[in-house]
């Protein structure tokens, strides 16, 4: 199983390398540190949400409501910060509380009432998003607190271009990487992490060996809520404005990125490194198109083809392997028939 996963990641990595070579051949600006930092910064928002999606998919579930959760956490937090003041740390804390509560509601409904995750989260998405628009009246917030601006400008590593302009690794990217490392650690080295794989692989067996399926389910959706809320704040940091309708509608793209990274919708499979590559693949397609001066209208066409080709070829491979096992069994059957005849 592990080898198969490793194969998938190498495969996605291969596609990324091929794309990178093509893009660099057309526009050498692609393969610069500056561009790389730029991609990593602008995709931190998607990437952080993708961590949460990965956890949910591994547990065998799906979440459609996270974009709504992210928006609510973002909007309410900025409102709170504007009313009572605070700091960046307070903003993250407040967003996390909101995100975890909204996520846990999903987890509770899914576990307690056995409602399919896709239905629950579509319903809560409509509920959360509808209420947000009603109470916010769709108003944008432009005047963010000053510390949102200062924080967004922090660079962990600062370099200078030939012209002497500063650029570097944004704090937002660093946050994304720290979250990925922590999540990978959680998934691989803790009892809880292994339980998530167990529940996704086979919930009934997991229950028999003593995993609390209920706790795992509530945890993954609450965790999804937490990641969504952090992503919401990151979005506010990147855009320096809060729009109640800017994130909702992108949920399927994030799920697609995670699935491209090898996570299975059936559960039990997926890694943080694969997820990172999946997010990067779509990010590089988008960035590369801009650099190759392909009109932006073609973006969806390419993404659609990447999804169909990539998921299609891995499904086809699985199908072929399945056929292979049938052929393997066949030579065994004649002797058995002979035995019966004797």
């Amino acid at each position, binding site marked *: 199983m592990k080898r198969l996963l490793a194969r998938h990641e190498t495969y996605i990595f291969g596609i990324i390398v091929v794309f990178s070579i093509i893009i660099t051949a057309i526009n050498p600006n692609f393969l610069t540190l500056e561009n790389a930092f730029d991609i990593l910064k602008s995709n931190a928002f998607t990437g952080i949400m993708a961590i949460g999606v990965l956890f949910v998919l591994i547990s065998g579930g799906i979440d459609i409501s996270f974009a709504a959760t992210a928006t609510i956490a973002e909007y309410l937090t900025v409102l709170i910060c504007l009313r009572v003041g605070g700091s960046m740390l307070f903003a993250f804390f407040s967003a996390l509380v909101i995100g975890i509560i909204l996520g846990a509601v999903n987890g509770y409904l899914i576990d307690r009432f056995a*409602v399919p995750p896709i*239905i629950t989260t*579509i319903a809560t998405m*409509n509920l959360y998003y*509808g*209420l947000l628009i009603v109470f916010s009246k769709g108003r944008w917030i432009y005047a963010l607190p000053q510390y949102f601006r200062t924080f967004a400008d922090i660079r962990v590593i600062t370099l200078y271009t030939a012209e002497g302009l500063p650029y570097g690794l944004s704090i937002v990217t660093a946050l994304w990487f720290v979250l990925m490392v922590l999540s990978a650690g959680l998934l691989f080295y803790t009892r809880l992490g292994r339980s998530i794989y167990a529940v996704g692989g086979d919930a009934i067996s997991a229950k028999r060996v003593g995993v609390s399926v209920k706790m795992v389910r509530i945890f993954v959706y609450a965790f999804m809520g937490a990641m969504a809320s952090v992503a919401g704040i990151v979005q506010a940091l990147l855009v320096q404005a809060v729009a109640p309708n800017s994130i909702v509608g992108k949920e399927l793209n994030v799920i697609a990125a995670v699935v491209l990274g090898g996570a299975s919708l059936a559960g039990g499979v997926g890694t943080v490194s694969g997820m990172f590559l999946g997010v990067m693949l779509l990010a590089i397609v988008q960035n590369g198109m801009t650099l190759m001066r392909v009109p932006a209208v073609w973006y969806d*066409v390419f*993404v659609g083809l990447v999804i169909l080709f990539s*998921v299609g070829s891995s499904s*086809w491979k699985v199908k072929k392997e399945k056929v292979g096992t049938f052929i393997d069994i066949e030579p065994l059957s004649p002797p058995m028939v002979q035995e019966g005849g004797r």
Partner: protein
Amino acid sequence: MMRPLRLEKKETSVLVGIMILVIIIMVLANPGTFLTYTNMKGMAYQLPELGILTLAMMVVMISGGINLSIIATANMAGIVAAIILKSQPGSPSVAFLLALGACLGVSSAIGLLNGVLVAFVEMPPILATLGTMTLFNGISIVITKGYVISGFSPAVLYIGNGMLLGIPFPLLIFLLAAIVMSIFLRKTRTGFSLFMIGSNAMATKFSGINNMAVLIRTYLVSGIYSGIAALVMISRFNSAKSGYGDSYLLITILAAVLGGVKSEGGFGNVSGVVIALITLQVLSSGFNLLRVSSFLTTAIWGFIMIAVMVTNFLIENRKTRGAT
């Protein structure tokens, strides 16, 4: 042909109960405005779009799949039809027939592609249709460059806005589509196999049903229904554009599930879905009369969805507890 595939009685009665409750509340909340000809007519014109799309979603959900590309298919087919109508090849009636044929042709082709990806390549339906959704949304944007194509002849506008024998024409299309779907699901071999595949695909495979053929036909039907929805949509908006009705996508899943279609597959019937659609429409029109934001209506749809699923769970739970 066997017909063991009815909704459980209790679920249907919960559904009808909710519908009646919602109607009573809306009549009481809007005295003198809800039960008027204007309001009824408004509802009759609004319901078909979502209704036909929900039928397109429902048929694949019964097979245990999902079709995220219905809206993208409808927009793509609508745009192709609109382009033909605008370029006016030959007389208006020739252009109309050509557009009609192209609309259904494009939508069936996309449906067929979905079917092949799901049944032959064996991609998970949610990903296959997410891929085709993105792809055809993209192609629509490339064709139209993101602009609107608008202004059609009266014959086209009649589809979405006309009236026949005092009944709004789109409602007639919806009723016909619902009846045909009901016949397809209950009286044809493919329809019957579809329910069986949704319940247990392995079992149907070993009982000699050609799963691949049935699934491909299912996605084809879903595509054709998206094409019919496209005709109603371009006519009602008097224009075509990529991205029209995007917000309907997840609502069709809600409407289907509210109508008793199981997202795991194997269960569902047209009458349940029609009742669910009427409920949603009454809510939306009623709130509109009360001048409530349409987003609050969406929120309430979400809430009702959860309430129904929880109620069904509790009923089910009591039944099994009684049995043991």
